[in-house]
């Protein structure tokens, strides 16, 4: 049985200054909203954050940024956030941009015990600077290293007391790989259920990767509300 937290404050209390954390989500979809809010409240500083994006100015990781808790950000696209731009230009924030597929694979590799791998993404671009290039079958590849974290904060649709997780639609994104790559993985779930309630064949993240869970309700903010008109 896993640790089931009774408050988000308690769920993040072991995260200390200078920790490296992975945070699931693509844009604002599938982010562990309440765990992020609790981190803002905890006021831990000098974090290295690994996440595809960095939230928006007033939500998600943007809140950690605004509160100057992040020293370094590793992600693939950070264009939705003005405070991010300000901190980078002011030299307050270090940023390491990584192609999205490479980022996903670095995290997958980290969680799977693979220290490094070769990928074609970034060959001949600024990303290749300082990286080993090797040719296989006449094509060039870059050596990229796996990533792990002290803590991974993920968001799932349903989770059981064994830590098994199921995600909903495109809210899955980076969450499963991050669950595996965190030394301690904390899952914020929309619904906490009893073991046996999740179909064993349909589990996305087996419980071995998860150390603690907490149930919470999310706002699920939408970045680009796009609809067609009713006929």
């Amino acid at each position, binding site marked *: 049985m896993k640790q089931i937290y009774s408050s988000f404050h308690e769920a993040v209390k072991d995260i200390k200054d200078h920790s490296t954390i992975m945070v699931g989500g693509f844009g604002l979809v599938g982010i562990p909203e309440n765990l992020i809010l609790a981190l803002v409240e905890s006021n831990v500083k000098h974090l290295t954050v690994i996440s595809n994006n960095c939230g928006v100015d007033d939500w998600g990781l943007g809140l950690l940024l605004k509160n100057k808790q992040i020293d370094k950000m590793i992600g693939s696209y950070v264009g939705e956030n003005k405070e991010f731009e300000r901190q980078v230009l002011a030299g307050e924030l270090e940023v390491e941009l990584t192609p999205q597929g490479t980022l996903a694979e670095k995290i997958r590799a980290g969680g799977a015990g693979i220290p490094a791998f070769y990928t*074609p993404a970034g*060959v*001949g671009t600024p990303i290749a600077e300082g990286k080993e290039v090797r040719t296989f079958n006449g094509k060039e590849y870059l050596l990229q290293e796996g990533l792990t974290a002290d803590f991974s904060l993920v968001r799932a649709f349903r989770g059981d007391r064994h830590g098994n997780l199921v*995600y909903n639609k*495109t809210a899955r*994104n*980076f969450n499963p790989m991050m669950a595996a790559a965190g030394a301690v993985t904390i899952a914020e779930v929309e619904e906490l259920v009893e073991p046996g309630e999740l179909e064993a064949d349909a589990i996305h993240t087996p419980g071995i990767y998860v150390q603690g869970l907490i149930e919470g309700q999310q706002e699920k903010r939408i970045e680009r509300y796009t609809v067609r008109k*009713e006929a």
Partner: protein
Amino acid sequence: MAVQKDKAAIREMIARRAEQEIESGYYVNLGIGMPTMVANYIHPEKEVVLQSENGLLGIGRSPYEHEVDPDLINAGKETVTASVGAAYCDSSESFAMIRGEHLDLAILGGMEVAENGDLANWMIPGKMIKGMGGAMDIVHGSKKVVIIMDHVNKHGDPKILKECKLPLTGKGVVDRIITDRAVMDVTDEGLKLVEIAEGWTVDEIKTQTEAELIISDELLKMPSSK
């Protein structure tokens, strides 16, 4: 000089021409912006599966208001629906599909393309860098990469160059360029002009293209927007 069409009409013309690259049975990734518009013109008789790199194989139409699901977006972060028979996956699997060359076609935007197929579409030095997102992976994964963009920039300068000036997204990755004025293929011999839009002459296109152009023996008229 051709009659200056308004921006929306030009974008539609490019998107409609890009749609012709899609064959029934294809798995296709459409980039953010103008490439996303191509989906609006896919012929109903074509069976096409659109891939979204955030983990959706089978993008459907935009949702009606009552169908909006905040957990269901495309890579441009717009709310979408899933098509019948769609599949969700995580980001590493999504890029495994891409990197593993399982996609038939990617249609992406471009800032600059060089005659050898180099592409620059992610950063301008001196401006805030937003990030490359999935572009650097996608250009290596698809069996065919088509770039759609304006033929010249807003100052009228060529965007199709001998060598890219901007930092690259990918080296030698582009197969075809579709602009508001022409269609060009990257070939072993060099950049080949294969279609030209109504109202433009070959000489005009040559002047507006810094890269050396080989003129196809079977130069075709580019279909106009309507």
